[in-house]
């Protein structure tokens, strides 16, 4: 991929709030061993059931805490690195998500939390996602998953004292019939799981 360069068209000295500035910029280029990817975890959910995405929000520094957790659904996936045998690749698929636009899926705002108070706010940007920061590991749940929920999600954790941690989870939403077509007990487990989710009661496992 050739880097693109634009001519300098307009340059202004900022005097007030940031305004549009058009300056030369370069696209990222792929280079040898330099990688700009984060580890990719995998998660699967049968369509209609709950999708669960893990995120470690514990700070590596003692006494530090997460102040903001933002979940993004990646707008684009541009493979930086297609060699599936690289150590950073969990499943051998292309890794590397970038894209200037990152659509927030949910946010957990704990910036104002002080010891003993719990004034954090949990935003679900489409009403179906819930974040559980107190679980171990912390978990994003997407209710009633749809095929369009499939994709790579980024969990960004801003800490007070430690550098930001970015982790990515790839969610694959499996169609019900696709799950039923899987061999062995997997299909049966999935079907009973769907029955539990939709009926809210316990069900007998189909054999």
């Amino acid at each position, binding site marked *: 991929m050739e880097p693109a360069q634009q001519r300098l068209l307009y340059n202004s000295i900022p005097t007030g709030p*940031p305004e549009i500035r058009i300056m030369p*910029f*370069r696209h990222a280029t792929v280079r040898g061993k330099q990688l*700009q*990817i984060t580890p990719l975890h995998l998660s699967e959910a049968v369509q209609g059931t709950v999708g669960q995405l893990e995120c470690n929000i514990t700070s590596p520094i003692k006494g530090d805490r997460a102040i903001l957790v933002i979940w993004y659904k990646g707008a684009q996936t541009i493979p930086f690195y297609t060699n599936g045998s690289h150590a950073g690749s969990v499943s051998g698929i292309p890794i590397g998500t970038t894209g200037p636009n990152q659509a*927030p899926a949910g946010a957990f705002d704990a910036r104002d939390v002080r010891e003993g108070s719990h004034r954090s706010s949990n935003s679900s940007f489409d009403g179906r996602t819930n974040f559980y920061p107190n679980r171990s590991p912390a978990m994003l749940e997407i209710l009633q998953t749809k095929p369009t929920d499939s994709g790579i999600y980024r969990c960004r954790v801003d800490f007070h004292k430690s550098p*930001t941690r970015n982790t990515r989870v790839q969610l694959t939403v499996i169609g019900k019939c696709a799950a039923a077509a899987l061999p062995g007990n997997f299909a049966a487990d999935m079907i009973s799981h769907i029955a539990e989710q939709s009926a809210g009661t316990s069900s007998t496992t189909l054999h």
Partner: protein
Amino acid sequence: MWMIAALRDVQVSVPPAVRRGDTATLHCYYDMDGESLYSVKWYKGRREFYRYTPKESPPMKIFPAQGVQVKRTASNESQLTLLGLSLASSGKYSCEVSADAPSFHTMIVTGDLEVCEIPKHVPSIHAMRSRYRVGDIVRGNCTSHNSRPPANLTWYINEAQVGATGDQGWE
């Protein structure tokens, strides 16, 4: 058609190549379009090393990263100045801009910075005698020190460039 006011047009300006020991200023431009800024972060590779959060006091936070020395007095929410660049400073630098609640709209753009070592001296020739007999083979070493990336070296005989294979007759 109504457009929702949202962070857009994030661009970085990174000098493509600088000399070792130089100072470089990287810019991150963005249009908040009426949204409030939460943070501007700079990453080297995957590691965040600079965070500017205007609503915090102090707004600037710097984390250690290899080959990165930030000049605080020349850095703010739209630019970052790096001092004493070393060869280890080369890499991908990303700027991540986030709007504040409720949207948390975020954009990330990346640029490449390469730190070069420019040779301080012209190349030198070694291991050549000043006199040869007709029919002798002439061999010599041409060396350029401290160059990164490696320099291209070209031989000239009587100010005429020698071909790559050296298949030329000289009288």
